């Protein structure tokens, strides 16, 4: 019959295979959220976690960051076992901390310590957004403050990499006060001529952007990083204003005078070395 010509009936049945699903183990491939290209995770890691197709900057953990910047083997960690209390007896807070500790192998959302970059000694603090969204509670505030004080005592530059959703809600107003505590430490350090370099990475928001992240002698950001105080949704819902597409990106901030430069991750180390070099140079007018 002529009807049979148009029949779509399959001649063979396909049996779903449970095996095929597990052919590619979890984590071997990564899809770039920007250009959607699928790449080997290893390849991306080798490229400092930058998409080699479109330049998208994946988030970098604190340990990875330190390894990528500091001279090999030079890092000495401070306060590595400082841990949070539950000052407000917030339900489930300690459990959440435990879970993140397990997940990230970190004790808190910031790693601090000292080391050298291109031979120049620095104190460095690196936040990690995978631990409680990089939120700032008492431990984050205390570790950063102590690191700044160390830099002051040793008279060496202080470099901070920020990545944070803001103040940690579970510690309430104590979190808020960490903004003032860290800023005060920076003020005393700065008054003694200390060099402060801040590099904002994705995302840097809320109480962190409104304290130490913005107080560098040099403020940098990585391309595409979200940086701002009040989030887009809050602004849109409270004042009902349409916001531009690039609102609160690193590029938006550069245009609006908030950043010295937007630095691609591949330029970062060399730029830091150049600035550290200029800052320690003495020079002589004996020409």
């Amino acid at each position: 019959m002529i009807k049979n010509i148009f029949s779509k009936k399959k001649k063979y049945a396909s049996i779903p295979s449970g095996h095929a699903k597990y052919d590619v183990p979890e984590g071997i491939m990564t899809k770039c959220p920007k250009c959607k290209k699928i790449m080997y995770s290893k390849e991306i890691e080798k490229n400092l976690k930058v998409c080699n197709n479109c330049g998208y900057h994946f988030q970098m953990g604190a340990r990875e960051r330190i390894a990528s910047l500091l001279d090999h083997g030079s890092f000495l960690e401070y306060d590595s076992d400082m841990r949070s209390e539950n000052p407000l007896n917030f339900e489930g807070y300690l459990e959440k901390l435990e879970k993140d500790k397990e997940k990230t192998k970190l004790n808190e959302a910031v790693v601090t310590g000292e080391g050298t970059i291109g031979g120049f000694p620095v104190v460095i603090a690196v936040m990690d957004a995978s631990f409680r969204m990089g939120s700032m509670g008492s431990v984050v505030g205390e570790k950063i403050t102590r690191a700044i004080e160390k830099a002051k005592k040793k008279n060496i530059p202080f470099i901070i990499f920020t990545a944070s959703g803001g103040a940690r809600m579970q510690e309430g107003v104590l979190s808020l006060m960490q903004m003032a505590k860290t800023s005060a430490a920076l003020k005393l350090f700065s008054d003694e001529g200390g060099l402060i370099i801040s590099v904002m990475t994705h995302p840097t928001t809320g109480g962190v952007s409104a304290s130490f992240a913005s107080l560098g002698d040099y403020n940098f950001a990585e391309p595409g990083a979200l940086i701002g105080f009040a989030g887009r949704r809050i602004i849109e819902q409270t004042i009902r204003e349409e916001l531009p597409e690039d609102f609160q990106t690193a590029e938006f901030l550069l245009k609006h005078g908030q950043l010295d430069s937007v630095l691609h991750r591949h330029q970062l180390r060399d730029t830091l070395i150049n600035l550290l070099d200029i800052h320690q140079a003495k020079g002589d007018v004996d020409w």
Partner: protein
Amino acid sequence: MVGELEFEKPIIELKKKIHELKEFTKTADVDLSAEIEKLETRLKNLEKEIYDHLSPWNRVQIARHPNRPTTLDYIELLFENFFECHGDRYFGDDEAIVGGVAKFHGIPVTVIGQQRGKDTKDNIRRNFGMPHPEGYRKALRLMKQANKFNRPIITFIDTKGAYPGKAAEERGQSEAIARNLFEMAGFSVPIICIVIGEGGSGGALALGVGNHIYMLENSTYSVISPEGAAALLWKDAGLAKKAAETMKITAQDLKELGVIDDIIPEVKGGAHRDVQLQAKHIEQALKRSLKELTNMSGEELIRHRYEKFNSIGAVIDEQVTNTQ
């Protein structure tokens, strides 16, 4: 030749003639070397005649030459490891002013200057080198940083003036310029200012409160552009040439008035004829200044700057005469 100016025409024509003759002798079987030599002597005399007697208006024309080297040209030739810093941390990044940190023969310095565009597109981006308030505020931020880290400040002045616009007024143009004058008086590091093109009004002075102030031989520095002066004084911007002659705006005039310390010689015909050589001339001045100023303490530098500006002005003070 590209970009020749009206008053240079006789030189250009003579050069062309010499060139033609030289070409001709290559192909034809005549010896014109005596003729050529004569013409070359005449060229030398003519160049001397013209370039040694430039009128103020001629100098304005050279200072405005489209190929005149800009701040970034000199930064590239004079400094190492320049790193540009953006933004005033309040409102925006004004690309009519550039600034950053660098090294000058190994000495860390902060360099700032107005930046004109090289072509139309670039000029729109840089607003023809006319800053908005955020430009002055960026400059101030960088100068404060220099003061904190005890780095000498070097500024290149090259602007027709502050930008006369609505937005600039809304954001406090006057306050921004005033604040720079106020704060620059108090920095305890050497400040060296060089007028490289046009130094127009408060927009220029906002980078100009220095211990040493230089002008390139063909640059100008004045309270207002010649066109603006003509419009204000005679209600006719067309009288700019006359204004340029009467307003005393050339480097030679300002040296005489005691406003600047020294004139940096220019390449014959103007800095645009040889940027490398021009940079060398500037380098000499910078070396001299830094050597002198880095020997002074912070307090001495502040006092030195204060006395410099304190002594500028012309008054008849009867009281002083009476008590003498």
